[in-house]
């Protein structure tokens, strides 16, 4: 049994070379963020009137949301479908979702032209707009995620809140809040868990609906009325592989409980989920007759082939073999391919497929866009590290197991 996989604060040393590298990335990004708020979007990005959406929408927002899907898929698996054996994967997945959506929101603040108006959709509703629906879902889901996260904080700090310096006056109120929230949430958490899954299904598919309004600008390899369904299916399929990839990365820098057996079993679900996505995606491609574009030799056709062959078909075949599933490295590689495939899909849909009729040049992200994106990713990883250090999220290797 995996009962000994018990989440605990890792208490690992903070200042490692990796952390310094993260800080360097963040500092570089801050430089360009200052430039963005002094010279405008035009000063740091390659965005234009023809290409109004770039790397930040493709990676930070679309890919960020997709790769945070481990949060709702694992919550559904464990809390709704009652597969409690997988309990230990829910906390890191939840943390990834919390951080993923937080950074999606931050990236949006930087990307939108009038950053301080980010709250407008909450007040000015426009029910016909797909983006309005996505925005409202993301805002609500972000709050749901934070609420789902409270019990983890309470578990660690309830009854022992010691804020530093003058903040100490807040010790009692914070403690009281944690206790109160913990007690209430214990009874009503099911509402938030289900709401989280529903909201995720809504905006994961909603992101796919965004480009349906521009049929003449999106390459036929990707433009399909079922784009929202494909976005939802790929988000569901990438949830568990993302958990496996994260576990692999976390295990590389922390002494963690070996959960490869559990993850191998989890990946069996992925065979079905990814297979279903593949069947629907290819079925749709041939049903629309868009497969004729596959061998055009253009950037678009190549990007589509890489996305499907390397990002879906190859890892699906790998996962079919039980030898690969039970090998740590094999499972990691297969999962990483799936994660890469879904990320490439989002980039393809939002950037590669986008062909404005009167564009003179094509879009390629600027140094500033790339640096800000990597800065956000580095900041996310850094906060992840801090939180697993102080909160019971990952399961450290227990002494007995280590010595045996």
């Amino acid at each position, binding site marked *: 049994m995996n009962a000994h996989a018990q989440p605990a604060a890792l208490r690992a040393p903070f200042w490692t070379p990796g952390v310094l590298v993260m800080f360097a990335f963040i500092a570089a990004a801050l430089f360009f963020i200052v430039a963005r708020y002094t010279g405008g979007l035009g000063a740091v990005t390659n965005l234009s009137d023809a290409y109004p959406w770039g790397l930040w929408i493709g990676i930070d927002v679309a890919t960020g949301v997709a790769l945070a899907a481990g949060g709702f898929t694992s919550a559904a698996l464990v809390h709704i479908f009652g597969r409690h*054996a997988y309990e230990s994967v829910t906390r890191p997945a939840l943390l990834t979702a919390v951080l993923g959506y937080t950074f999606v929101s931050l990236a949006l603040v930087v990307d939108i032209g009038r950053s301080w108006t980010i709250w407008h*959709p909450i007040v000015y509703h426009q029910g*016909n707009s797909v983006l309005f629906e996505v925005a409202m879902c993301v805002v609500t889901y972000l709050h749901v995620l934070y609420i789902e996260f409270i019990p983890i904080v309470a578990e660690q700090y309830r009854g022992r809140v010691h804020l530093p310096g003058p903040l100490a006056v807040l010790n009692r109120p914070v403690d009281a809040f944690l206790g109160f929230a913990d007690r209430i949430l214990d009874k009503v958490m099911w509402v938030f868990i289900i709401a989280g899954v529903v909201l995720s299904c809504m905006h994961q598919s909603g992101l796919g609906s965004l480009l349906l309004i521009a049929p003449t600008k999106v390459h036929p390899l990707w433009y399909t009325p079922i784009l929202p369904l494909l976005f939802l299916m790929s988000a569901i399929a990438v949830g568990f592989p993302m958990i496996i990839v994260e576990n692999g990365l976390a295990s590389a820098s922390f002494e963690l409980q070996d959960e490869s057996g559990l993850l191998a079993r989890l990946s069996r679900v992925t065979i079905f989920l990814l297979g279903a996505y593949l069947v629907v995606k290819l079925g749709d491609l041939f049903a629309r007759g868009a497969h004729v574009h596959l061998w055009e030799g253009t950037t678009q056709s190549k990007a589509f082939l890489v996305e499907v062959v390397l990002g879906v078909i190859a890892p699906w075949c790998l996962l079919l073999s039980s030898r690969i599933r039970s090998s740590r490295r094999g499972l990691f590689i297969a999962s990483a391919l799936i994660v890469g495939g879904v990320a490439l899909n989002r980039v393809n849909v939002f950037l590669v497929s986008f062909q404005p009729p009167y564009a003179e040049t094509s879009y390629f992200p600027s140094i500033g866009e790339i640096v800000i994106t990597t800065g956000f990713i580095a900041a996310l990883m850094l906060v992840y590290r801090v939180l697993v250090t102080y909160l019971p999220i990952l399961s450290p290797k227990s002494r007995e197991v280590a010595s045996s």
Partner: protein
Amino acid sequence: MNLNRREFFRVAGIAAATPLLERCVEAAGGELSGESYGCLVDLTRCIGCRKCEQACNVVQRLPAPERSFDDLLVLEKPRRMDSHTFTVVNRVHTGVVDEHGRPVPTYIKLQCMHCLDPACVSACPVGALTRKENGAVHYNASRCIGCRYCMVSCPFQVPCYEYQDPLTPRVRKCTFCFEQRLAEGKIPGCIGVCPVEALTFGPRSQLLETARKRIQDDPGRYIQHIYGEKEVGGTGWLYLSGVSFDRLGFQKLPERPMPKLPETIQHGLYSYLWAPIVLFGALGGVMKLTARKAPGGTPEEREEGAES
């Protein structure tokens, strides 16, 4: 020095355009009725004088251009609208020649098409873009968040952005002179100034009749296609041409309005939030069922767990 020169032309431009603009106020006949207005562009009449560009620049108080509106050499290269140019005239050679064998160019005025069912209005998450009753697609900067989804969605690639403004950038496009003129019963600046009546202002239904009549009266001069009558569900600005629109760089566009598909999906799933509520109920039911089982999971799972 250069600036002074430019400023001179600007002032001169305003002076030249003003009487023309005043004249067309009368032409509109005061109050506009509650109808949806548009403009008929007759490409067979346009002479490429760029007076419409100049009038637009003056009425909209846009920054003076780098090259004077009298400079017809700018027609050498096809241009697009930008954040301080709401309309441009381009010259296209289609191979048509006159009786002396000289090429006859076609001049094409571009601006916001003021669609009947605009993609940008449907896309905007905060309702900063709206379609007014008189036909103008109107932008309200104070609501705008700067997501630029309108620009992504526009099939004509019209809205432009003030990318150089760090804090208060605006989406920029032809306003149909909504605030400057239409609201007061005056007709848009570019239309009134046209010296050859290539631009005709009026209720859209009437413009379509006018267009059909012109084609009927002179079938040799026109092709049988009113661009904008059916494209993307219809546009406020309509075009008549003597050569195929494909050859002039006009896109072949579907007759279905762009917002149709996404709006059908959105309203299909989210009217009264029925789909999310059903999903919530279904998941709640599943949760209740599984919770009844032993907390250790199903026997199968315990067996699975023992494998590791």
